[in-house]
């Protein structure tokens, strides 16, 4: 019997975004602590460009997901666990959209327009306002820590499926065909 897998496109976007988002998170923490310098300004610019890229990728990913539904969750899972998995995935998608949006809005409110790769200006929805900029900075941070917490749950669940439940939930997202 052919086991249900994610499409290769979905697998590629999943792991590509995993690497991109973890890198964005780590770089975000690092750059915030840097002393003001040309390097800091360069990293901030790259962080924003990568964030815009992540936003584009999640949009493509959602469009793909609409046309190519993911394989069903194993029948061995209880109703509650399935609900938990769906809520968790929904939250991850929500955060993948909300985090770059909050970053873009924060940048505008702080008076720095986002210009994609220094070439394509993305309009400012907000004008410069220090209080709003500071509030959005807190929002961006809280959303990121929420994402990190849910990601820990996501990885934990994948390992549990593989090791404890011994089902194919992890394997069907692996880039190689594991039996």
């Amino acid at each position, binding site marked *: 019997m052919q086991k249900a897998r994610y499409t290769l496109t979905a697998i590629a976007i999943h792991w590509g975004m995993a690497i991109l988002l973890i890198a964005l998170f780590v770089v975000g923490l690092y750059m915030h602590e840097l002393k*003001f*310098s*040309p390097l800091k*300004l*360069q990293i*901030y*610019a790259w962080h924003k460009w990568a964030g815009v890229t992540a936003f584009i990728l999640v949009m493509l990913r959602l469009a793909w997901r609409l046309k190519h539904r993911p394989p069903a969750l194993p029948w061995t899972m209880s109703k509650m666990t399935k609900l938990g998995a769906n809520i968790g995935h929904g939250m991850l998608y929500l955060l993948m959209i909300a985090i770059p949006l909050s970053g873009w809005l924060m940048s505008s409110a*702080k*008076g*720095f*327009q*986002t*210009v994609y790769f*220094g*070439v394509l200006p993305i309009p400012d929805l907000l004008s*410069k306002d220090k209080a709003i900029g500071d509030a959005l900075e807190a929002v961006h941070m809280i959303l990121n820590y929420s994402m990190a917490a849910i990601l820990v749950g996501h990885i934990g669940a994948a390992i549990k499926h593989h090791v404890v439940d011994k089902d194919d939930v992890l394997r069907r997202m692996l880039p190689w065909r594991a039996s």
Partner: protein
Amino acid sequence: MNIKVWASVIGGLMLASGAQATEFTSIQNDKSSLHFVYKQMGVPVDGSFNKFNAQLAFDPSKPANAKVDFELNLASIDAGSDEANDEVSGKSWFNTKVYPKATFASTAVKQLAANRYEVSGKMTIKGRTQMITAPFTFTPQGNTAKVDGSFVLKRSEFAIGEGMWADFGTVANEIQINFHFLANASK
């Protein structure tokens, strides 16, 4: 024609020329502004200076005799963020402890068109003096006049941003300066 008539004609002419020769001598600080735009990683960032003053001797009908002296408190900068404000007062940027002020002293003013002029002069920042030329419009409104102009200053010519900032890859060399002054006529 008798002498009385001549006297009144001459008097009238003098009054008329007197009314034309309005000399503007100062600016209203609260209604004047000095903004600048610089590019950081390809992104335009706005900034401004809040404390400056100017002394003028500007009669729009005699631009050749005009004189402008401008003084700017460099510590009054808003470079776009708190972090940038702290940075630019330091040694590699304005070094405001040693050089608190930037000054401009005009050497020539010429008329370009109706209400359009061009001022040239010596700009001194951080102990370095360079010739600067800036076109501006001059729009009189009774006893006041709007002065609007802009020019591009190259930060490297004044050693603004030395050391690790000297490269233009992060912060561009060209700084666009936009000035808007409300000038007062002498009473």
